């Protein structure tokens, strides 16, 4: 299997730092800001942004984890996808929610996540932060913060590996 590294550990670190600064810049003065990571790797990514925000601003944002399985549009075509827990312990009403995911592709995961959050309350706004935007959207969805924009071919796969569960940090493109 051929693989091409597009972000290494250092580059991921720098990208997370930049995204964090962009989030803080765009939401300057916003007091009701929170981060919600989409399972699985979006959660780790959101935790890194969260830590960075604390570093930079000295504040602790509310943070949550979202499992979108129950909201997937292809659920009846999958073989028993495992449902994991959504852990959002704060009220999302009137919050500015920054959704965090590793890869943005068709936009269907984001659609499911937006619906899932709307069922928890009525946030003031929802923004989207992703580490990799690989293009090929099937829905009118656009990221507010993108780490790297990297169009890849249909037969290629973007894999985000994070040290928390994969043992190392890297973003690679592999031929499917």
């Amino acid at each position, binding site marked *: 299997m051929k693989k091409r590294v597009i972000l290494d550990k250092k580059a991921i670190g720098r990208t997370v730092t930049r995204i964090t600064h962009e989030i803080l810049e765009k939401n300057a003065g916003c007091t009701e800001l929170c981060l919600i990571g989409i399972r699985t790797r979006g959660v780790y990514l959101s935790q890194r942004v969260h830590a960075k925000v604390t570093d930079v601003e000295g504040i602790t944002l509310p943070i949550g984890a979202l499992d979108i399985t*129950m*909201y997937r549009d292809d*659920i*009846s075509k*999958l073989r028993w996808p*495992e*449902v994991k*827990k959504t852990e959002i312990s704060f009220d999302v009403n009137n919050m500015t929610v920054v959704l965090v995911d590793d890869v943005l592709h068709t936009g269907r995961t984001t659609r499911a996540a937006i619906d899932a959050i709307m*069922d*928890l309350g009525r946030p003031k706004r929802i923004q989207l932060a992703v580490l990799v935007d690989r293009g090929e959207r099937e829905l009118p969805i656009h990221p507010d913060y993108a780490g790297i924009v990297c169009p890849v071919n249909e037969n290629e796969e973007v894999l985000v590996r994070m040290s928390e569960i994969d043992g190392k940090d890297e973003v690679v493109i592999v031929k499917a």
Partner: protein
Amino acid sequence: MNWKRKDLLGIRDLSKEEMLFILDTAESFKDISKREIKKVPTLRGKTVITLFYEPSTRTRTSFEIAAKRLSADTINISSSTSSSTKGESLKDTARNLESMRPDAIVIRHGMPGAPHMLAGILDSSIINGGDGAHEHPTQALLDLFTMRDKKGRIDGLKVVIVGDIAHSRVARSNIFSLKSFGNDVICCGPPTMIPPHIETLGVKVEYDLKRAVRKADVIMMLRIQKERGGTTYIPSTKEYSTLYGLGREHVESAADDVIIMHPGPMNRGIEISDEVADGPSSVILDQVENGVAVRMAVLYLLIGGEA
């Protein structure tokens, strides 16, 4: 874990891994019932029929709420209002219902094995909502879920099941689930209500309630099954309640953190005193609450994905 079953017919068929997978899935569904919008789109476009040939408040409502919270459409049929009163056989009723293309049928029937028979002839997923004195799998699963929630574990517990063991599908399903996780199960009741050779299922028998409940971690009370001739097995309900009714003194001799369970409906003053039923050790209403989450998990696993 790869879920492969079409039907849920009994606990006896399930492996430990499958039971744990259902419980874990139920954990994810439990929060939905606590939200303001108690609905997710997961089973949109699916149809669930509850076909009940015996009376039920909890189980039927619980299945219906579970299905609705997953956005499935539900239709409830009770034997008293169905064509079975006109002489239609179960098989014909089921085949006719299947022609309307439901995805799952939850059946409760007085005849043991009725759900198994339907599972063999229908393509829909069949869920056993209680078949005679045989099994009631979702009850045992919600009991397991409640024990795990309250005790933090479901192994190595001393569980006492008290009452009409012979006519209780709840007892049977619980014995299967509790034994497969390695719990100590004691069946207690008058000799006429303890089936012969029940020890072959790995349980102990104790006829004296006071002795049975000593240091128990879980006490599960059962109702006298009047509809299955339960009262003919005892001299009088007064005597039964004196010997086998659970009171405060029993709870006090059990483990400090004992939980008292009852599948409902309770006959207060017969098998359980008000003081115990409404007391701090009682988890009876938690069982009902958890029942919805467990049934959501079962419906999701059976009809949620592609077969």
